[in-house]
């Protein structure tokens, strides 16, 4: 496969109250052209920090990439100068954000905002940029694109603004699109439209996509491959069908059980007790141990690293592969204790 992006052992930390706190630890993954990778996890798991690191948009003060490399089209982005990155950002790789309301400039027309990338990266002159921008608006299926070109963001609905964001991101035909919770702020019928649009555009252009979300339903709709993150680290990586059918990490298993089923009524949801530990609360052991019904003594003592369980399926858990008998064994012990 044609690997477009390869992240190797990336570590990112933030300085909080004078202490360096790891936000992302030892992250490794790759994305091939035309592929969709989903990064899934709950708030504070490090998924957005990962996206910002890839884009080179981490805050200048307080955040740092401590080690690791981000190889994009054969070049290491981590060691690149800011000037060099600026040529890549917006042109070779682009990003769309969760809040289409706040990520558009309210003082500029949507047309100007789309044309900006073309003028800056592609050397378009204004009239040509206008023509191309209107084409882009049509491509993201905005009706009456000519009129919309001259409108300001406040006139548009949430779904339309997200389409504008997508048009901006696609203006320079990037090889990689990073979408951070692109549909979280939208209603479900509009979400379906946007996901469909992203899939179509990807098919047309062959770009790779990294989609960051907390919603496993969205993951199931678009992902080729899935990374599950927990407390700043990858806990499981697998092709989407494998992840949903044969999840191995207890966190993934619990998360799948915590989603109510739309098509059948179940009695009680699986619920993962407690909450995600903050960076300063993480101990020596597995960061999920305190919430894990399968944890044994080793889990508290030593953090597991991500290892291959099967071809294309990595998991960071001492107890994997978890089997049915292990779950039943747990039940026996508990009943014995009662």
């Amino acid at each position, binding site marked *: 496969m044609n690997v477009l992006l390869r992240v190797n052992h990336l570590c990112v930390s933030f300085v909080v109250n004078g202490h360096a706190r790891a936000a992302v630890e030892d992250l490794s993954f790759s994305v091939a052209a035309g592929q969709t990778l989903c990064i899934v996890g*709950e*708030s504070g798991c490090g998924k957005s920090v990962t996206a910002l690191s890839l884009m080179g948009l981490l805050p200048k003060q307080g955040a740092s990439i401590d080690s690791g490399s981000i190889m994009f089209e054969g070049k290491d982005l981590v060691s690149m100068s800011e000037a060099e990155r600026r040529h890549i950002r917006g042109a070779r790789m682009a990003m769309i954000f969760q809040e289409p309301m706040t990520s558009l400039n309210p003082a500029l027309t949507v047309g100007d905002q789309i044309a900006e990338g073309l003028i800056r990266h592609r050397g378009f002159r204004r009239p040509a940029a206008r023509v191309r921008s209107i084409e882009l608006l049509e491509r993201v299926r905005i009706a009456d694109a000519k009129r919309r070109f001259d409108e300001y963001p406040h006139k548009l609905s949430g779904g339309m603004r997200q389409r504008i964001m997508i048009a901006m991101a696609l203006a320079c035909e990037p090889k990689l699109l990073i979408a951070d919770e692109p549909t979280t702020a939208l*209603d*479900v*019928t*509009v*979400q*379906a*439209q946007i*996901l*469909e649009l992203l*899939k179509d555009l990807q*098919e047309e252009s062959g770009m790779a996509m990294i989609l960051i979300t*907390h919603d*496993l*339903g969205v*993951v*199931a*709709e678009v*992902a080729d491959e899935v990374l599950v993150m927990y407390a700043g680290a990858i806990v499981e990586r697998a092709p989407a*069908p494998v992840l*949903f*059918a044969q*999840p191995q990490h*207890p966190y993934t*298993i*619990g*998360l*799948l*059980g*915590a*989603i*109510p*089923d*739309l*098509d*059948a*009524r179940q*009695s*009680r*949801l*699986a*619920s*993962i*007790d407690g*909450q*995600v530990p903050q960076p300063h609360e993480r101990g020596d052991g597995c960061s999920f141990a*305190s919430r894990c*019904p*399968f944890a044994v003594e080793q889990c508290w003592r030593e953090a597991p690293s991500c290892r291959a369980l099967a071809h294309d399926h990595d998991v960071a858990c001492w107890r994997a592969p*978890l*089997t*049915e008998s292990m*779950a*039943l064994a*747990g*039940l026996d012990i*508990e009943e014995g*204790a*009662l």
Partner: protein
Amino acid sequence: MNSILSQTLLPGAEASRVALAPILRARGLTKHFSIRRLGASGPQTLRAVDGVDLLVHRGQTLAIVGESGCGKSTTARLLLRLLDATSGKVWFEGEDLGSLGRRALRAKRRYMQMIFQDPYASLNPRMTIGQTLAEPMTIHGIARGEHRQRIATLLSRVGLSASYATRYPHEFSGGQRQRVGIARALAVSPRLIICDEPVSALDVSVQAQVINLLQDLQDETGMAYVFIAHDLAVVRHLATDIAVMYLGKIVESGTAEEVFGAPRHPYTQALLAAAPRPVPARREATVRHQRILLEGDIPSPLAPPSGCRFRTRCRFAQDRCAIEEPPLEKEVASDAVAGAVLDAEPQGHRVACHFWRDITSSQWAWSSHPAGAPSVRIRDSRLVALQAAFVRSDAAGDANPTRRINDLSPR
């Protein structure tokens, strides 16, 4: 283990329906807001809620679903008379809330509480958790001497340590704050709680904790819930009855089985088709494009479409839909069950669509889903067994010291 097993039984929605007593009824509930906008000639009327009938039974959960701007939160506020209705009536335990004076209304409110969406905004940051919980007790005349004990019981009941009473909201996570919000609603032993998107700001794993808590509390106390939500899977999980709203009107209502099992209104069908399910889709583009996609956005409630309000986004719309507004009519099958006596009540499976008879559910359901087949969640025995371990640890509470306190509280 007995209590855990009893919790896993499904609520017998249909079986016990005959014996159900209504706790809350709304008839013709309407709220229009007058809006002055820059550049507009005069004030405009925003029709937020337009003629809504609802019925909530004791111990049951009515869910109101719909997308943003459909009027579901305004409806919630009208039900409690936190907003005064433009027209229409609400009866709580048979009493017309509109006819009550300030004092009488306040006394009634003890029995109808509310839980809000944003656990960050709905707690006073300058009050300790204990003060927050004591306030409704003071207002509703619970003796001061009882407060301490009640607060401790409440906190442990919602899975928090009793020692948290002296702390402030900023010290807690979103899930914990929502538990405090639930404890505040429970403080005066209500018979009805209106929950306005109580879990939509929470992470999935925490959301499941709160959903389980709401279910347990209902099983124990027999409270009724009005559950306002946009997440259809959460609604399916909790609701016994469902009303689907679009632009201020109910377009379909009935039991959860009726509305989600055999949706009749094209909007309900589209909502269900659009909801992402955690089942990997087939990759073939041909299958994908059969899915119903609603075009465009919800129109402005300042100028709702004539006739059927959904017609501008409906793929079945015909000329008649623009002229004549479809009434919320009863399906024949449910009619026979409901009987003539209850005819005036908003009961049975009701649909507001001229052509629902022509739109069969089979037409939408499985051909439109991205997987092209009934989306069956993968439930192999291994996964079920492993997930049961999480259900167990939640209910048994062995791993979590704050949960153990639960068992001491009166059940």
